[in-house]
């Protein structure tokens, strides 16, 4: 349990942090005393086995769950002090398994992203038009702007949803498993879009199922188990055989991708020499 | 449930037999109550006296005996038959659609029977003689519609969606029946009281008219109980075990149509018995359809006849439509079934 990790000097620069965060569903604690900070203008991936609390953490960060204890700060302000629309202008969330009304086109979907900036008497402005166009361009969807979402491929549809979040013009973007149910090609479309967004100055936090993609596309990796952070830092520094075994109970051989320098998992197999995942590793 | 259906029952056989015996005793008790209480100037004590004298061989042709023999006895028989028939029909329909909410009244099978009878009477058919086969035909049509709906991809696998569709279908059929009543006063007079569900004023002949249909249904049910239990494991498993799912479904439809058609023809549409009885039976004996079917017989009879006895007593001297009481019992059970976690797994 004691993989050592140095507390990264993030606390001063991070736009979004959680301190001593506790969240539970009914009586079952999901997150316990969790401290975490996310580096500014970088891509952070949260990984961990099923049920480790990673999606719950993301929802709590977006204020969809009320923590039982601890606090979350966004730009040094407690998120509870934000108004609903104010928060939506500072932080965008794309949950898992989103659905839209039938027949909605990509451009129409993206326009909903402008709602936090609009009001009943200010329903559409030149800025709205410009931002929607820019979001379409960022997601490379101009040619498909007026196509209904159902008529798009999975990757295009997911890009349209991310474009909606982009149109919110928030400095922080949270994505919950943005590539589940996408095949390899479509997943890469989404990951490259995410990289571009970070390069343009957004802080992106995404929950990922797949450790390999997390290593490849994240600047910063957060590994979670049983509602706690096990390790955090750049993938090349923190990913080790021991970490993989502690997280998933599997053995693997780690190699380094010669093109990107990211760690690669090879020869993944069930760990036979340990009793159960999570028992002590020395 | 495990692979061998023979030992698949959820509860030990002995306990099931005990329950069956207890329920049969309860049925007898309710029958006696049904003979003792009711409209007419004969009080319960007089009735009891008459009944005991009759059992000891002293038949008399006084007023009390007339009331019991020609008014209450057919009514009691109808209550038992209709209750058992509806309960078994509900259990069959639930097994074949694999949906614990499938109920002949909710799904429009009774509505089909009612509508068919209304049409037949409006077209000038003599009510009494034709009612049973016509109602059975209508129930058959309703049954086929339900089964077709349950096999629509995406909609049929969702137990609740099927019930919604059934509720809409029955709403439609009752609206159409009301339309016929609106246009045809003779029909309206003939079936106005029948349409709300009641056992009042039935004659012994009416009971006899039911027997052929019910007998055929009973034979069919006995024949298909085993393959039906296998069908609960899924169509492919049932085929693998050497059964023929299509044939089983066809026979179930036939049996349900005969049972519901007969029950509706004599008592009018009575909802919820087919839901409540199998629900209770499964609670007592587990999910195996063969034990459920046996237990449904006395449970349905007790529920229906019990509701009928109560309906005679609460608003004396007039009577409450039976459907009101069954709905008051059945609606909470419906909610309970929906709330239970096991909903999609039947």
């Amino acid at each position: 349990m004691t993989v050592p990790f140095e507390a990264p000097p993030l606390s001063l620069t991070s736009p979004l942090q959680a301190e001593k965060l506790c969240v539970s569903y009914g009586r079952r604690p999901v997150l316990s005393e969790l401290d975490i900070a996310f580096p500014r203008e970088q891509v952070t991936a949260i990984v961990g086995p099923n049920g480790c609390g990673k999606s719950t953490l993301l929802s709590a960060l977006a204020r969809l769950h009320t923590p039982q204890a601890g606090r979350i700060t966004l730009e040094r302000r407690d998120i509870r002090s934000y108004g609903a629309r104010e928060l939506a202008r500072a932080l965008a969330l794309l949950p898992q398994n989103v659905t839209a009304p039938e027949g909605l086109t990509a451009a129409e979907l993206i326009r909903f992203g402008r709602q936090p900036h609009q009001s009943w008497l200010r329903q559409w402005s030149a800025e709205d038009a410009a931002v929607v166009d820019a979001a379409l361009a960022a997601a490379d969807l101009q040619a498909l702007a007026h196509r209904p979402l159902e008529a798009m491929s999975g990757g295009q549809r997911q890009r349209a949803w991310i474009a909606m979040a982009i149109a919110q013009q928030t400095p922080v973007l949270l994505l919950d498993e943005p590539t589940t149910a996408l095949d390899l090609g479509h997943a890469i479309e989404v990951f490259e879009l995410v990289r571009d967004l970070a390069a343009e100055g957004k802080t992106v936090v995404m929950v990922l199922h797949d450790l390999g993609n997390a290593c490849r596309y994240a600047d910063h990796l957060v590994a979670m188990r049983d509602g706690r952070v096990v390790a955090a830092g750049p993938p090349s520094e923190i990913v080790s055989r021991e970490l993989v075994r502690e997280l998933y109970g599997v053995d693997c051989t780690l190699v380094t991708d010669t093109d990107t320098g990211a760690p690669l998992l090879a020869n993944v197999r069930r760990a036979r020499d340990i009793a159960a995942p999570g028992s002590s590793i020395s | 449930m495990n692979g061998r259906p023979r030992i698949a029952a959820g509860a030990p056989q002995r306990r099931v037999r005990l329950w069956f015996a207890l329920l049969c005793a309860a049925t007898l008790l309710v029958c006696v109550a049904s003979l003792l209480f009711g409209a007419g100037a004969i009080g319960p004590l007089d009735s009891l006296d008459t009944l005991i004298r009759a059992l000891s061989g002293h038949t008399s042709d006084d007023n009390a005996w007339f009331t019991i023999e020609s008014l209450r006895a057919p009514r009691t028989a109808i209550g038992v038959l209709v209750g058992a028939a509806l309960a078994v029909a509900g259990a069959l329909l639930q097994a074949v659609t694999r949906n614990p909410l499938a109920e002949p009244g909710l799904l429009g099978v009774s509505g089909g029977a009612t509508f068919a009878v209304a049409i037949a009477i409006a077209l000038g058919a003599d009510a009494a003689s034709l009612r049973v086969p016509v109602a059975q035909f209508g129930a058959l049509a309703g049954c086929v519609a339900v089964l077709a709906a349950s096999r629509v991809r995406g909609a049929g696998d969702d137990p609740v969606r099927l019930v919604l569709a059934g509720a809409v279908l029955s709403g439609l059929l009752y609206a159409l029946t009301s339309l016929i009543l609106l246009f045809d006063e003779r029909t309206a007079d003939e079936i106005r009281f029948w349409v709300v569900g009641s056992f009042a004023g039935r004659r012994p002949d009416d009971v006899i008219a039911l027997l052929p249909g019910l007998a055929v249904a009973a034979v069919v049910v006995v024949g298909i109980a085993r393959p039906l239990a296998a069908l609960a494991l899924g169509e492919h498993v049932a085929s693998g075990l050497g059964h023929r799912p299509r044939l089983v479904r066809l026979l179930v439809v036939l049996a349900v149509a005969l049972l519901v058609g007969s029950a509706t023809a004599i008592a009018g549409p009575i909802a919820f018995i087919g839901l409540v009885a199998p629900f209770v039976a499964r609670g007592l004996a587990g999910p195996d359809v063969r034990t459920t079917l046996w237990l449904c017989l006395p449970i349905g009879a007790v529920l229906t006849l019990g509701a009928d006895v109560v309906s005679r007593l609460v608003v004396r001297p007039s009577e409450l439509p039976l459907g009101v009481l069954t709905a008051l019992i059945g609606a909470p059970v419906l909610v309970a079934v929906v709330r239970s976690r096991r909903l999609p797994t039947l």
Partner: protein
Amino acid sequence: MTTASEHARPALAPAGSWRLPLGSARSGRSLLLDKRACVANLLLAAALWAACVASLCLGEVSITPRAAIAGLFGYGDFMDVFVVQELRWTRLLAGVLSGGAFALAGCLMQTLARNRLATPGIIGLDNGATAFAVASVLGVGLGIAPPAMALVGASVATAIAFGLAGGIGTQGYRFLVAGIGVGAAFDAITRLMLARSAIDAANAAYPWTVGSLNGVGALALNMLAIGLVIGLIGAAALARALGVVRFSEGVAQGLGIRVAHIRLGALVLSVGLTALAVAVAGPVGLIALIGPELARHLSSRRGVPLMGATLAGALLMVVADLAGRVLFSPIEIPVGLISTVVGAPVLLWILLRPGHKIGV
């Protein structure tokens, strides 16, 4: 992106919309109107107008449109004035208002539950309102007027159905079937009360149970008119947020919508409108399903067609009532029967189309 607004570029309305600037261009105040929704609403309004005129003209005595409209204002032939003012006007008004209220309530509830089948009638609200209103007519109701009792009944039925199902949306269709159960129980209670009451009292209460626009009371009509105005204002205020509530809850909250508040607001409006409409027309629940369905087909998917649903509901109710009066004259078919016969196939079609989701 602040530079975008400093460009001298005109504010382009997005495809399919008109932008109405309010005040100077600098203030940026504007309304955005959906072209297709506007056209749909105009069409529906025109159809409603035609149906209203037809409803005033046709019946056991037919009069010309010109005479009917003149008669409405007290001019023209004495008989025409009597027929129009005394017999047909109140009935028409009741049809327009109750149809609009039913459909608006249906559209609100479908949207807040994110399910096209979730209409007040299906979850037993109509029956709850009817049971309490009948109790009031029969004198069980503590002296409260039927419309007010209908409000109480609708609220009780809603609370029970939602309480039993443990919330909306999350439980899929469960709360719909819980609602069917609640509706069946309330229906049984209504029939129980009718069976126990004296024959003349039962006759007075009977129109409540079938759904008919015959013999509408002035109090109920006034309350409905006020309720519909409040409902439309409330719906307009909620409309933009409701457009987002159609998405999943996380998305809506991420866009800065207080989903729970919006849902509660829409629910309160929906319950109130349904109860007041039931107090006028009886349980004609399927209007709440077909009205929004029609509006959704005519209008665009960009917004929630609240206005369109209201107009469509009014139109359907007036047409159904007219058909019930005229088709088989002198026999009058209650509007509740007509709406069931027409609405049920629509509902079955929604339910049983293979492979279709039932969103909003």
